[in-house]
């Protein structure tokens, strides 16, 4: 299992980049981890983010960004292996355990996370959170779904439409 794999591993000695959250917190992170973000990857390939100037992320606050980076750091090694074809079952199970725990968080944090994943184009994180939100919604009535997603209460008109729908598709809510 001791595979040095020194070949094309981006720059050998882990290159670091600095990310700056909307509230001006600086995060120093390995380029390989930050590159899980398609958006950041382009900047980093262009040589950005190193040295004193960081990459500003005006749409992501520090609490969200640290969570995002936690995910990226954990997933970077597997991503570097090209979707982990040679990852062991243990590694995969460990990642899965991490993922499950990772999304076991407050709903509002989940929404900030999925927004950040969307903006930064971190595909794996976005679908991980999407699955979690879907699980929260599964089996709920339209009204409960509205509440879960923080929609305002329905207008009388919308309420009437929802009722009509429930009548028509009542079996779906058994």
């Amino acid at each position: 299992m001791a595979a040095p794999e020194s070949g094309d591993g981006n720059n050998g000695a882990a290159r670091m980049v600095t990310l700056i959250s909307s509230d001006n917190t600086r995060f120093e992170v390995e380029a390989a981890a930050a590159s899980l973000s398609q958006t950041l990857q382009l900047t980093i390939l262009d040589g950005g983010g190193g040295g004193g100037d960081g990459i500003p992320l005006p749409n992501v606050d520090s609490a969200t960004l640290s969570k995002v980076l936690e995910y990226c750091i954990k997933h970077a090694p597997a991503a570097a292996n090209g979707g982990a074809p040679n990852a062991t079952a243990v590694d995969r199970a460990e990642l899965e355990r991490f993922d499950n725990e990772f999304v076991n968080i407050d709903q509002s944090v989940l929404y900030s996370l999925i927004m950040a994943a969307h903006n930064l184009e971190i595909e794996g994180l976005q679908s991980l959170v999407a699955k979690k939100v879907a699980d929260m919604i599964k089996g709920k009535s339209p009204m409960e779904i509205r509440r879960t997603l923080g929609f305002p209460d329905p207008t009388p008109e919308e309420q009437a439409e929802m009722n009509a729908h429930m009548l028509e598709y009542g079996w779906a809510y058994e």
Partner: protein
Amino acid sequence: MENPSKKSKTQATHRQGDEPVAAHVHLPEEIITEIVTCLPGKSVLCFLAVSRAWHRITTDPEFLAAHARRRPLEVILRTLVKSVRPRDDWVRYNTDDIALATVMVSGDAVGPGPGPNPARRLVQYPYSINRIAPASPQGMMIDSCDGVLLFKIGRCTYVIFNPVTWQWAELPRLPEIDTRASSPPWTTKFGFYRH
């Protein structure tokens, strides 16, 4: 250089202990779509009712196709509920009521509970299906593709059905063709293809 990737650390140089306050995040449409794509068909149906915007998203053909491709494979079970032979003996076919249900192909994906029947009701025909001729199975489901089912419900009548949105659509009728003719053209059945 042993495994440098394991050593990486996130350092917040001046952390502010702000809790995110995102009670009413407005999720953009792409994200909503991604979330709904992770849901089973029955839950997608609930989304039709949530709001007009969601109704539009969840009935979009492209969304439905993407959704179907993501869902686990299911086997379709067909049950003949009732078959009635009409009295008029000039009618040569029975009228059948058919129900379709689905079962997950993968054993570990079977829904919660140790219930004896994990089948999920997929469709009950909204109308009786006419048996065309003894040789051709009655009210046949002919094909399925991207979550859409194709049925033959009459000699030249085909309908497609989406069990997620519960939408039926009749395909343009084919010209009447005598299937007992001894020479072509014959039209028996067709399926889906991508082009």
